[in-house]
């Protein structure tokens, strides 16, 4: 059984190696190979899952030690896997959603000449992500952590001929690296505190360490989580990451990779439990981001960027829940899983819409598409209902729990957090309704407006490759694309209820994450009612603004907040002004310094010697008399010196 854990990672890794190193011969079958290996990994995961179900709750964790990785004195790092309930949840999510998206990509990337490589990168991502959640120590987790960053880099920049894609990829990697540095420092701290960074010894002994140490480790882990999960202040890369092909946005930048931060915090729960200050920081980051993402999501006209803002905001919910400690870990993961379903479904739906609309992403050039794409409409609609928390659907259960737990934090903090979470729920309902109305309802604006929009030539990646004409003919996507959407829609509808049934999800995770009931100041019913009221307000506001009136095809100027939100609340402008411009000046001046000052000192020494010898050379003029004079002078000086010394 244990040896199967290696297969989980190995299968997609093999696929990546074969697809990326194999030649053009694989072009015709490569995508099937990639999909097959992803599916194989899912099947292995399912087998392990059912094996795990057969054992008692606290006997479910499995270990698999593969080899000793970096053995140095006093430093032990192994390549070893740990599969417990938390990892298992992720394994199923990653391989399940991953396989569906592989299938979807077969259709979506059909006309791309580099499809083999795309599947190679997708498999690489799966392998790295599985490594991340299966590692039994923080260093191996770090390998997966940067591995998913690499896969994300490669996939965001997949259409490398677009400068915007290449820039977005680089930005994503760099911002992530800042977070990675945090993870590295956290590992250093663990090593100096515990002498180890394997989960078991560190987490078991976390209680012995001083609170200061735990807080430092916790804050560094939070920095890492911020980078990977696009939380404030390291969130700026996620919107740009939408340059990647849509299946990538669905898999990496919605369902799995960006939730790695939540995994990290939940996994390190024992550390955070001993560091209330760090937990507070986590909660604040989560709360700020959930509002930040939601506000940005309201202003974007690009369907993918609106969904990206939403992703940020939903992960904010998860981080918030994870920051609440044992009260929230299980809910964070639960929301993570349901979010994986509905957000992946929404992105695939968006991809399907773009597929039928010449890769147009501007929602102002959509409208009335429900007639032309019925399957997409229904699946997208179910995902929409799930994310806004429509009662009975999965988002309702998972988000409601988090809001409840936020109120349960107690005191003023509880009220603030709960209030923010409620407000977030209302805004979520608003921007998602906006997306829904602008895309599927209203006038058919694409009949009058040219798509893709001529003023944004760079958003159009592959229409020329696909040989399509500029005039859109909205159509339903092929079965290979709609089937994954349908499966995900079923998940979005049912997952929450299944998880909630008899608290099965909480009980499942409890041996790993622990669980305690929160005590909200008001009863659960009141919270639920408030959530539903928030939902209604949000939907209503969006309907008033976009449903009753025609949507202008060119975005109105908007008020100050809207304009700021369109620019990601000026975070990028800040980054640009401070980091990019400042950095450019710094490097330029350093290059100048190096040439003129540091190297100048060296060259100056050389020049000084050169000039001196040039002077001295003149003494050697070749006239015997001159030499005689110098000899005579020298003798005179010597004699004088001797006499002087005598005299003194």
């Amino acid at each position: 059984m244990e040896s199967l854990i290696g297969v989980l990672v190995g299968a997609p890794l093999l696929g990546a190696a074969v697809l990326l190193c194999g030649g053009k011969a694989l072009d015709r079958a490569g995508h099937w190979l990639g999909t097959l290996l992803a599916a194989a990994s899912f099947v292995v995961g399912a087998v392990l899952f059912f094996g795990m179900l057969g054992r008692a709750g606290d006997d479910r964790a499995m270990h698999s030690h593969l080899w000793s990785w970096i053995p140095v004195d006093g430093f032990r790092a192994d390549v070893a896997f740990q599969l417990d309930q938390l990892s298992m949840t992720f394994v199923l999510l990653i391989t399940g959603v991953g396989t569906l998206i592989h299938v979807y990509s077969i259709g979506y990337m059909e006309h791309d000449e580099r499809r083999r490589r795309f599947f190679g990168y997708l498999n690489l991502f799966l392998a790295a992500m599985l490594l991340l959640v299966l590692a039994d120590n923080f260093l191996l987790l770090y390998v997966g952590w940067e591995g998913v960053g690499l896969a994300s880099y490669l996939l965001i920049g997949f259409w490398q001929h677009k400068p915007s894609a290449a820039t977005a990829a680089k930005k994503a990697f760099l911002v992530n690296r800042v977070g990675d540095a945090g993870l590295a420092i956290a590992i250093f701290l663990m090593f100096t505190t515990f002498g180890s960074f394997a989960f078991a010894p560190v987490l078991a002994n976390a209680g012995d360490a001083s609170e200061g140490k735990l807080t430092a480790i916790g804050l560094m882990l939070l920095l890492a989580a911020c980078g990977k999960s696009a939380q404030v202040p390291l969130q700026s890369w996620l919107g740009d990451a939408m340059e990647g092909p849509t299946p990538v946005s669905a898999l990496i930048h919605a369902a799995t990779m960006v939730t790695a931060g939540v995994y990290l915090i939940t996994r390190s729960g024992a550390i955070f439990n001993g560091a209330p200050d760090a937990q507070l920081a986590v909660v604040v980051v989560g709360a700020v981001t959930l509002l930040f993402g939601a506000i940005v999501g309201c202003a974007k006209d690009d369907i993918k960027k609106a969904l990206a803002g939403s992703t940020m905001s939903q992960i904010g919910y998860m981080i918030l829940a994870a920051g609440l400690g044992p009260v929230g870990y299980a809910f964070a993961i639960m929301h993570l899983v349901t979010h994986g379903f509905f957000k992946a479904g929404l992105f695939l739906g968006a991809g399907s819409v773009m597929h039928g609309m010449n890769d147009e992403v501007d929602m102002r050039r959509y409208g009335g598409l429900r007639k032309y794409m019925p399957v997409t409409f229904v699946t997208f609609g179910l995902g929409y209902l799930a994310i806004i928390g429509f009662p009975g659907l999965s988002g309702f259960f998972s988000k409601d729990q988090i809001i409840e737990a936020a109120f349960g934090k107690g005191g003023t903090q509880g009220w603030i957090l709960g209030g923010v979470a409620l407000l977030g729920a209302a805004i979520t309902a608003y921007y998602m309704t906006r997306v829904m109305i602008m895309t599927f309802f209203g006038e058919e604006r694409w009949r009058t407006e040219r798509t893709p929009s001529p003023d944004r030539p760079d958003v159009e990646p592959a229409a020329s490759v696909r040989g399509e004409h500029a005039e859109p003919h909205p159509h339903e996507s092929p079965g290979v694309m709609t089937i994954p959407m349908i499966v995900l829609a079923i998940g979005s509808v049912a997952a929450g209820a299944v998880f909630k049934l008899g608290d099965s999800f909480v009980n499942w995770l409890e041996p790993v994450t622990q669980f305690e009931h929160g005590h909200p100041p008001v009863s659960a019913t009141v919270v639920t009612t408030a959530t539903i009221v928030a939902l209604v307000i949000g939907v209503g506001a969006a309907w008033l603004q976009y449903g009753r009136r025609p949507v202008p095809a060119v975005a109105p100027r908007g008020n100050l907040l809207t304009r700021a939100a369109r620019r990601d609340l000026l975070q990028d402008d800040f980054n640009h002004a401070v980091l990019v411009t400042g950095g450019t000046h710094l490097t330029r001046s350093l290059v100048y310094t190096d040439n003129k000052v540091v190297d100048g000192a060296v060259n100056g020494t050389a020049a000084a010697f050169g000039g001196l010898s040039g002077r001295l050379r003149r003494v050697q003029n070749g006239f015997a008399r001159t030499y005689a004079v110098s000899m005579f002078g020298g003798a005179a000086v010597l004699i004088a010196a001797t006499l002087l010394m005598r005299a003194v």
Partner: protein
Amino acid sequence: MSFPLLTVTAALPAVGAVATAAVPAARRTAAKWSALLFSLATLVLAAVVLARFDPDGGRYQLTESHAWIADFGVRYELGVDGIGAVMIALTALLIPFVVAAGWHDADPGEERPSSRWRPTQGFFALILAVEAMVIVSFAATDVFLFYIFFEAMLIPMYFLIGGFGDRAHAAGEDEGAKQRSYAAVKFLLYNLAGGLIMLAAVVGLYAVTADQLGTGTFSLQQIAEARSSGELTMATTTERLLFLGFFVAFAIKAPLWPVHTWLPNAMGEATAPVAVLITAVVDKVGTFAMLRFCLGLFPGASDWATPVVIALALVSILYGALLAVGQRDIKRLVAYASISHFGFIILGIFAMTSQGQGGATLYMVFHGISTAALMLVAGFLISRRGSRLIADFGGVQKVAPVLAGTFLVGGLATLSLPGLAPFVSEFLVLVGTFSRYPVAGIVATAGIILAALYVLLLYQRTMTGPVKRPEIEKMPDLRARELAVAVPLVALLVVLGLFPKPLTEIVNPAVEHTMSDVKKTDPKPQRPVAEHGWFDYKPARHSGGEHE
């Protein structure tokens, strides 16, 4: 008398150099094959050295010792510890790649048809000569013997830099020759200056030993024994002065900020294979010698100098990385990146922890391989376009995907992506530094962010985007010879990244010896976790939260 394996390993490339130089002018290809075969044979011998080295055996193994200049106590003494063994293996490993990558770099141009003109023979003979000298430097356990080869290396390197420059020079042939000769002279003078300071220190060391032991000696082992038995004690000031003499020479060679400025010129003007020779092989003698001679001979002074050295290493890391970001020339960019990496190596050495020093040793090896991969592929790229300026490229990925792919892997190794070899060493250096000097560890960690910046900027500007120029449109992908260079290096990066254990096993005992030389032990973790089975962990039940 056992078989003098180390002497033979060092002599073989020397013989190869003579043989290659003797190949008639018209038989250029024969000279190339001769060089390749000799370098491969040396690799086999180096592998034997590595295999014969017993990690559990004595400190120096495969030793040879003969009287040489008896009057001054100079002996021909060779021997390797684990660090020396892996460094010899690295040298022998990289030379065949350097030779294969430089296959056409020294073909005489059309304008010199004279039959007596033999640049090709000279080029490859010089490379083999450098290899021989570097191997002796890594194996010498006699300070004077080391000094001679440390300095002698400059001569062939001078000719390699000055005589065989990069044809791809933006400013034209004549200007290129001028800058090349400037770079070569700068390289020579810089290193000679360091060497002379070291010579003074070598003489000083002799004087000290002659004064205290009766007979002067240069033998590392004798000096170490005399020190441990208390026969030889150095006055603090003497020790510090001697340490500085050695350290300055090695810092110039390494190179450490602020005596680094020769490297960008030398690497920029030399051909890519020679640039690899400089940074991946010759410079490593500097860092290696810090570990063996500075720490081994002058532990007290090393301890005294540590704060300054660590500060300089940190400056090197950040300064090199920032300057790499600002470069417009691909090869100079790699040069500044190397300066940053040498900062990491020196940081690891002077952190005085077993992780740091083990990491620094591995870093020397892995940096050699990763820079070779990046620089050689960059050389292929440059030779296709006839320019080294980043701005002259763009969109190469589309026309030459394999070239771009190997370039990316080399770049990712340079930014220490986990899973590739340099990560292992960089992490060890950082963790080792952090455990003794937390602030230095954190500052150095910022270096990994900058590394990502310069590598990805380079990749973005050269490889991605639309194809900018017709010259790029016609660019061929890697040819068979080039693949034979790039693929094994990339494979090594991956394999060693996942499975560095064979190397760490050889290096660990040597690091222990060095640590005992400097009388240091690793800082203990504050709450050490007892060594225990990983597998029986159950989280303690959390008994009630604090928010109830």
